[in-house]
């Protein structure tokens, strides 16, 4: 082959490699970190004023206004479930190592399908509609978003150190069910929040 021939062949293959790389980068979506943003806001939709009168002592029939929010940064459509549980001082919270959810009874659930980059924020207005004491343990009946949920099975000694535990679950097509947290590639992540309060007698 002549010098000109070799020159043509080498330029052609160099250009082929360059254009193939450009085409591959153009067609293939960039990998990005996949996560959810999960938060609770206070009465004024800020990270403050979580309790009426600034104290975590909640008497019956006092409405507490929070806002729960989830933002989808997973890069795809997601079906999310927020599980609200009622715990006390002895409740085991979610385990970040084993990804086990909290061992507390479920109070209520909220579900939504979210587009990528979509934020879902909704009110979580709750109040203690009734309270009873048995052997020093206080049990409370809850109203959430004007829906009566009745007495909860978990009580707290002296009505102190109740907590709402908010867990973020996502629908897994592989498992055909909701899982606690989500998968970011091969890595499993979880997200949960808790807010403590006490049930007190008015006056």
């Amino acid at each position, binding site marked *: 082959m002549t010098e*000109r021939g070799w*020159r*043509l062949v080498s*330029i*052609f293959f160099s*250009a*082929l490699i360059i*254009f*193939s790389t450009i*085409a591959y980068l*153009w*067609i293939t979506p960039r990998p990005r970190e996949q996560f959810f943003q999960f938060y609770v806001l206070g009465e004024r939709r800020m990270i403050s004023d979580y309790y009426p009168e600034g104290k975590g002592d909640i008497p019956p029939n006092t409405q507490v206004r929070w806002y729960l929010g989830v933002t989808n940064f997973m890069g*795809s*459509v997601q*079906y999310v479930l927020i599980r609200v549980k009622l715990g006390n001082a002895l409740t085991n919270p979610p385990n970040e190592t084993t990804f086990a959810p909290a061992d507390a009874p479920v109070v209520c659930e909220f*579900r*939504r*399908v*979210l*587009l*990528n980059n979509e934020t879902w924020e909704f009110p979580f207005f709750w109040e203690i509609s009734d309270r009873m004491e048995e052997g020093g343990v206080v049990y409370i009946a809850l109203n959430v978003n004007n*829906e009566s949920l009745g007495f909860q099975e978990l009580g707290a000694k002296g009505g102190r150190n109740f907590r709402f535990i908010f867990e973020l679950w996502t*629908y897994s*097509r592989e498992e*055909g069910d909701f899982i606690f947290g989500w998968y970011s590639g091969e890595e499993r992540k979880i997200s949960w929040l808790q807010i403590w309060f006490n049930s007190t007698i008015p006056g």
Partner: protein
Amino acid sequence: MNKRLLSATSLLLLCVHALYLSGYLQEEPSIDLAEERLEEAFSAVKEAEIAGADESELVELVNRLNEALSLIEMARKGVEHDVSRSIEISEAVIKEAGELKALALDRSFKLRITAFCLVPILSAITTFSLNYIYEWWRRREVKRLLRMIAKKKERS
């Protein structure tokens, strides 16, 4: 009399059977079934997304899924709501997501074919362009060199 009673009973049984087959006497679909359909619809939307469907195409499907979801939530709370309407929505979403997936796959296939054909064509164009530029530059340099040699000879 007995024959009349027998034929009346047979007729009645036939009517009941026909009504059952027509779905009139069938039970209302359950919330569990509605949830199952919703999950299938969500999976169909995910598949369309993975196939390359645009977000603008998915927005409407997601809104309808959330509508079906709110119907199920109402039914779960005991509010009088038509669970079958939720199932209808989910089934419509499954169908449309399937069509969207097929379109997206077709679009993606055409894009890959275009890229596959364009790469060698662009490479060939680049090769001949660069070669032409090189040869033009080389001729220019040779001419410049010859002019320099000629001038030098004239001076000497």
